[in-house]
């Protein structure tokens, strides 16, 4: 018996969300009185044994170059082999873009009940139930999983990473790897930018900014805070900003530590995707904007005056010129 964590990588680097699921998996293992193991697919430049500080005892590494090409079908079969090798009864993924591609497939393959979008540790006091977001963050549900093997896909930023001491034993797993049907022919990454779903801080702006030419101040503020940038739906629809920045009920759902909303009215569909943020700051010139009801801090004022001042004040705090 064990808890198996899928350690997601990109270009051979372990993703931040993987550290969250490792910490989470270690806690689940503690609850169940078992140990946590991990699985890494593809070649990596990192020292995987160092991941032991997040609680993982043993890492199965399938260092097969063919796995540097992402095909969920191929990955699923390899992870199923790792699950078997580790005798996993609980398998944990990040509910990130890879997790959303693999976890449902693995659920079918292993006939293992899946809870995707989990936001808390399982409740094992009476069966096995896991809390997840539903209605785009407007509510939650407790999902009971009755199958022998269970799969949890944990939402990014829902569980805090804790680093302690320890090293993991890294073992090579000689898994059978099918030929991929999907060929990854091109990868483009906005370099230096923080991925939105994983970001601790998000600076978001809406139609109140009037036009794409005014986003310079948003980007500057975001850079200063190591934040990702986001926007409301009409802004993406008007092509002022790329589609992948659109947050809300029909865009990306996020749960950063800090969400700064500038010139966004706070429509119910927008709030649905961001109301899981820990701290919400709203800057809007209309005191009646519905967003203030969902905010922790707010300033009623013109974004074009407030943002430069806000940026200057943060520079002062951080001691940057």
């Amino acid at each position: 018996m064990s808890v198996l964590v899928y350690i997601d990588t990109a270009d051979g680097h372990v993703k931040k969300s993987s550290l969250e699921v490792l910490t989470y998996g270690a806690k689940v293992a503690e609850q169940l009185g078992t140990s946590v193991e991990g699985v890494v697919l593809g070649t990596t430049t990192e020292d995987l044994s160092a991941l032991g500080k997040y609680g993982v005892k043993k890492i199965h590494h399938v260092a097969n170059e063919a796995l540097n090409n992402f095909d969920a079908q191929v990955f699923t079969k390899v992870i199923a082999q790792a699950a078997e090798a580790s005798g996993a009864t609980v398998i944990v993924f990040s509910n990130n873009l890879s997790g959303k591609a693999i976890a449902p497939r693995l659920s079918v393959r292993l006939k293992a009940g899946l809870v995707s979008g989990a936001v808390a540790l399982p409740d094992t006091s009476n069966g096995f139930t896991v809390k997840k977001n539903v209605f785009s963050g407007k509510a939650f549900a407790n999902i009971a999983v009755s199958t022998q093997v269970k799969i949890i896909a944990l939402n990014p930023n829902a569980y805090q990473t804790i680093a302690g001491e320890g090293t993991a034993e890294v073992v090579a797993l000689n898994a059978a790897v099918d030929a991929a049907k999907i060929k990854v022919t091109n990868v483009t990454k906005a370099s230096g930018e923080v991925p939105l779903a994983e970001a601790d801080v998000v600076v978001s702006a809406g139609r109140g900014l009037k036009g794409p030419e005014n986003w310079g101040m948003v980007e500057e503020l975001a850079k200063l805070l190591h934040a990702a940038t986001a926007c409301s739906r009409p802004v993406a629809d008007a092509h002022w900003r790329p589609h992948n920045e659109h947050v809300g009920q029909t865009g990306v759902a996020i749960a950063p530590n800090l969400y700064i909303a500038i010139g966004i009215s706070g429509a119910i569909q927008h709030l649905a995707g961001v109301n899981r943020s820990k701290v919400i700051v709203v800057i809007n010139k209309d005191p009646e904007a519905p967003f203030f009801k969902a905010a922790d801090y707010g300033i009623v004022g013109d974004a074009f005056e407030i943002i430069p001042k806000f940026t200057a004040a943060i520079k002062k705090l951080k001691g940057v010129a």
Partner: protein
Amino acid sequence: MKILVCISKTPDTTAKIAFTDNNTKFDVNGVQWIINPYDEWYALVRAIELKEKDAATIIHLVTVGAADAEPIIRKALALGGDEAIRVNADSHDSFYIASQIAEVAKQGGYDLVLTGKETIDYNGSSIGGMVAELLDLPYVSLATKFELAGTKATITREIEGGEETNEVELPVVVSAQKGMAEARIPNMRGIMAARTKPLKVVEPITVEALTAVAGFGLPPAKAGVKLVDAENVEELVRLLHEEAKAI
């Protein structure tokens, strides 16, 4: 080219979210129902665009739901599609629903199965992947572009902080999100035509669900906003730093 588009019925985005029966059931009282936006705006419209390019394309819609899902499927047919199939079953878990869709897909022999990225009520993002595994087909999740040349699809999917281009031979299962297509409004002709398009009802296959909802809840309300004067932006930064410890 034969396309199957998965259509789900979801509460309107402004619907009041409340629960009944000791917090075990969604309160449907007064709720307006819509086609799940991802299914409508991206999966269905992209299928229609493909048909516009190649008139020989056949589009079938499938929904798993009781008879009250029919207005939704008619609405989808008003946008486009040749016929619809309703699997006559109340909603269960994702595995149950995916199994029904996979069965329909097996019968129909489709080249492409399209789903929305997720439903806006359950937010599972699981149906596409499950259907693909049940059919032993490749799956491209959260696609933002889909192009076809003969039997080869070139698909762009979102990855953390960027995107990736995938090439794959049909048949394939794809979940669609923003970027795939531009949302459309049905016109009068479409609405009229939808009335006479075939809507087949089939009975579900026997499948055990793997999960069940034990209960629902609402998140705790916010304590209330702390307003800072526009002339005192530095105070906001201080609060965020010292009180909220967020910067």
